[in-house]
């Protein structure tokens, strides 16, 4: 499918072409799953979000407008689904959440965190939600700054601010860990 443009692939997928559908799933499903997992820290929930994202994609494909790459659109949908789930779990207005490292983990997260002390996943999971989104899309999934900003519905400048804060927080963790070892 390498010689086929994404729009052709989407058109074929919308018309029921199984090969085009499989190619679309194989290329985008892992990214969506990883983005959802980093947000939700739960494999089953991340799989639910991934499946729901593709259900919406199948409905959208017949009227697809190539304004954005499919992966950017899918990440937007997945992030919104993740935010909905996080909001239901933690009924706090996101605007009121202070931008600091969230050390108040849920019990299952705390257990997982204890088991994964020193592992990068637990440090990323501890970042504030928006910083985690920015880092996940840009640094870990390789979206461009414009694509990531579009997926998050923020300006490029806001995305860069989130990225800088996320990396600064992780670097502080890394430095603290290195200092503890010495």
């Amino acid at each position: 499918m390498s010689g086929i443009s994404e729009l052709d692939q989407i058109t074929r997928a919308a018309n029921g072409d199984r090969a085009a559908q499989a190619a679309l799933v194989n290329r985008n499903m892992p990214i969506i799953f990883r983005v959802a997992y980093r947000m939700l820290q739960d494999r089953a929930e991340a799989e639910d979000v991934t499946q729901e994202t593709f259900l919406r994609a199948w409905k959208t494909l017949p009227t697809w407008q190539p304004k954005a790459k499919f992966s950017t659109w899918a990440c937007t949908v997945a992030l919104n689904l993740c935010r909905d789930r996080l909001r239901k779990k933690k009924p706090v207005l996101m605007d009121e959440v202070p931008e600091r490292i969230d050390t108040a983990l849920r019990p299952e997260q705390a257990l997982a965190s204890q088991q994964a002390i020193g592992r990068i996943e637990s440090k990323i999971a501890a970042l504030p939600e928006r910083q985690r989104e920015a880092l996940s899309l840009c640094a870990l999934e390789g979206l461009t700054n414009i694509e990531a900003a579009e997926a998050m519905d923020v300006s490029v400048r806001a995305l860069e601010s989130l990225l800088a804060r996320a990396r600064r927080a992780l670097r502080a963790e890394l430095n603290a860990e290195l200092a503890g070892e010495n």
Partner: protein
Amino acid sequence: MTDLTMTPDRVLELIAMYGAETGAWPADERDAALALLSASPDQFTAALEQARALDQMLLQEALPEPSPALSEAILASAPKPAPVRKNAFGGVFGLIFPQGVRWPAGAALASLLMGLVGGYSYASTGVGYDQADAAYYASFGVDSGEDWLVSE
């Protein structure tokens, strides 16, 4: 963030935001930043080293894989191909019978259409009732309706 005047501060910002891997920097700023970087590398060595350490840490991220059943479930919910029409009138049938041809309903509709077409054709000939009646009675071997009534 297109900025034609790249500054050392902006290069430091790029390193702080996007890391030491210059391929991850915004495409519209990369060349200018690389030019500044190669012009005075010492200025950025410490920032690059710090960023590189974090980049290495991020590469160690290990996430669980989605279950193989997930892609199967996603593909099972994908749109199915439209059924292939087997005759040349498939398109017309598709318009008339969007839910597929069902013969009793189809026959009723065909009868209705034939009646309407036949009726319209008859009316449009301008032939009067008398002539039509004469033709009708002639088909039974009598001259007119009156003869028919008489013979009864």
